[in-house]
């Protein structure tokens, strides 16, 4: 057990290390010395932001110390939780801005991921037992997975938001309200949340349905299914076993798709101006706010790694085979 998780954690730590190193290398070594050109451009926009940026870059890159020391300084400031000062929302620290956006992103991502996984698995399982449903679920599933996230978001915003006028299409709550715990405000939150959620949910749904359908067909052809049928087990029992066993690879699939789902939420947030990390990234790019961009990148990487680790733990809990092999390995 320790060996298994140790190995996983090592990969995640290595990934974090590499991602952060990329984060450091890219602004430093990109052709055309982006640091200097950013500084030049920022100084035109706002002098005081430029001064802060200059100071931060000097601390970050310590432009006159050797490279290895610059690199160590970078990690040291990361360890202090110092992600720099935002240019876009000067003079707020990047860390605070991101922490304010994370709840919105999570509010979209978590329900969309979990619900699409559950509902998609459910559809896929039904598709595998019904030819008519199969002929519907499969093409619809493929179209949904082939849909760019932002395009479905645009269609929903246009159709249900602008044309039908059912839902608002911008922000996380009505600007006429101030955040509070009133029913009115919560209602506004939900109203603004629904379309981006739906969009994300629908695109993800197709993939899960197809995956489940294929997995369950594979399970229904497996030896244990054949044996049960030969002993006259009713269809219900065989399907139940197949469904449970097909869930396990779908869980692995969830881990593999995390990056894609996060990308989807970034794009969806942009369409709906939903103030999560995706929207921050867009603003950071528009305002040349590279501290904010790099900070958001770090948060995304860490979030994905944590989610991966949670899935690893869940997998061990639900699959007796892994559990037993690990116990055997530890003994």
């Amino acid at each position, binding site marked *: 057990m320790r060996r298994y998780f140790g190995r996983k954690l090592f990969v995640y730590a290595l990934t974090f290390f590499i991602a952060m190193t990329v984060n450091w290398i890219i602004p430093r070594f990109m052709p055309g010395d982006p640091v200097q050109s950013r500084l030049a451009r920022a100084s035109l926009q706002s002098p005081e932001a430029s001064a802060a940026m200059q100071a931060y870059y000097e601390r970050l890159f310590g432009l006159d110390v050797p490279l290895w020391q610059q690199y160590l300084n970078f990690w040291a400031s990361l360890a202090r939780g110092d992600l720099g000062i935002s240019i876009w929302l000067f003079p707020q620290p990047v860390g605070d801005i991101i922490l304010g956006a994370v709840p919105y992103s999570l509010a979209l991502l978590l329900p969309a991921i979990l619900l699409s996984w559950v509902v998609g698995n459910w559809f896929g399982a039904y598709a595998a037992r019904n030819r008519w449903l199969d002929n519907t679920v499969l093409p619809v599933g493929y179209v949904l997975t082939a849909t760019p996230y932002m395009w479905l978001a645009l269609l929903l915003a246009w159709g249900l938001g602008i044309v039908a006028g059912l839902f608002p299409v911008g922000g996380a709550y009505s600007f006429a309200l101030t955040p509070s715990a009133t029913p009115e405000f919560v209602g506004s939150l939900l109203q603004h949340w629904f379309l981006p959620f739906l969009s994300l949910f629908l695109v993800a749904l197709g993939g899960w349905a197809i995956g489940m359908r294929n997995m369950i067909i594979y399970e229904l052809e*497996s*030896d*244990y299914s*054949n*044996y*049960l*049928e*030969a*002993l*006259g*087990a*009713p269809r*219900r*029992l065989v399907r139940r*076993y197949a469904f*449970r*066993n097909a869930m*396990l690879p779908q869980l692995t699939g969830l881990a593999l798709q995390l990056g894609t789902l996060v990308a989807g939420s970034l794009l969806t947030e942009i369409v709906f101006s939903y103030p999560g990390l995706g929207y921050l990234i867009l603003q950071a790019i528009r305002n040349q706010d590279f501290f904010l961009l790099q900070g958001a990148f770090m948060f995304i990487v860490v979030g994905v790694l944590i989610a991966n680790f949670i899935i690893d733990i869940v997998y061990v809990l639900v*699959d*007796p*085979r892994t559990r*037993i*092999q690990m116990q055997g390995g530890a003994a």
Partner: protein
Amino acid sequence: MSLKVRDLRVYYRTLAGDVKALDGADFELADGEITGLVGESGSGKSTLGKSLIKLDGRMRYVSGTVELDGAELPVRDSARMNDFRFREVSLIPQYAMSAMNPTRKVGRMIADLLESRGERFRALRPELVRRLELVGLGEQVLGRYPIELSGGMKQRTVMVLSTLLDPSLLIADEVTSALDVSNQRAVAETLAGFRDRGFVKSMIFVTHDVALVNQIADTITVMYAGRLAEKGPAKTVVNSPRHPYTRMLISALPEVGVSHGERRLSGIPGSPPALLDPPAGCRFRDRCPLAFDKCEQEPPFAEVEPDHSVACWKA
């Protein structure tokens, strides 16, 4: 007679047409009889075994009747057949090692299966444990996942489970092909023991291993290219076979009791005809040293002496 099979034909559907894998089988099985069903791969022996319990997706019932203990076995109707499966006809599959759901404890799986068939697991549990102990397994097997059992343990568990409801007919489909020689004998003897204790009434032991069959079977049934070639008491078939194919099969054995796997059949020149569009008449004709004009007509599977039938004009 516990089992009566008349003119059973089961074809495989393919895009190129029907493959006539089982093309007219007529035979009987006495109460308490164990018959060894032998033949090359593709001879239709597995198709015959499967068609008595469950046709797989690509098999198509064409004709024939099956009677078990005087009642008709509805082999063509999978839904009606369900009442007979496990209780009247049961199967020990070739894939016994992977026959149990890997994510369910063995006992839970057995309970799920029994309850789904309207049996009470509680009531059957003592007998289940007794039989597990009989094959050298403890009660604790029921609390394990299949992955925690060795191959032999899994095989024995499946053997006990398949026969738990005392079926009249048991089909053992190539159960020994994945085992080494000493385990092959042990498994075969255990199954013969099941018959002796009355767990099963009669048994079809499908295998390509004539030598093994000779040790436990009462009778031997030889199949060739989708048809029965010969059926008779084991001693008679081994010592004085009548069908030329059986003769070649037996003589290709270096010595009874020594197994060389399937390779020994390569001693017979030629290969069986394609079953997509088999030639009329005797199907062994092209490889048969005794073939003559009359072989262009299909020889009947006829009794040449009591309990000994052969499908050959020269028998």
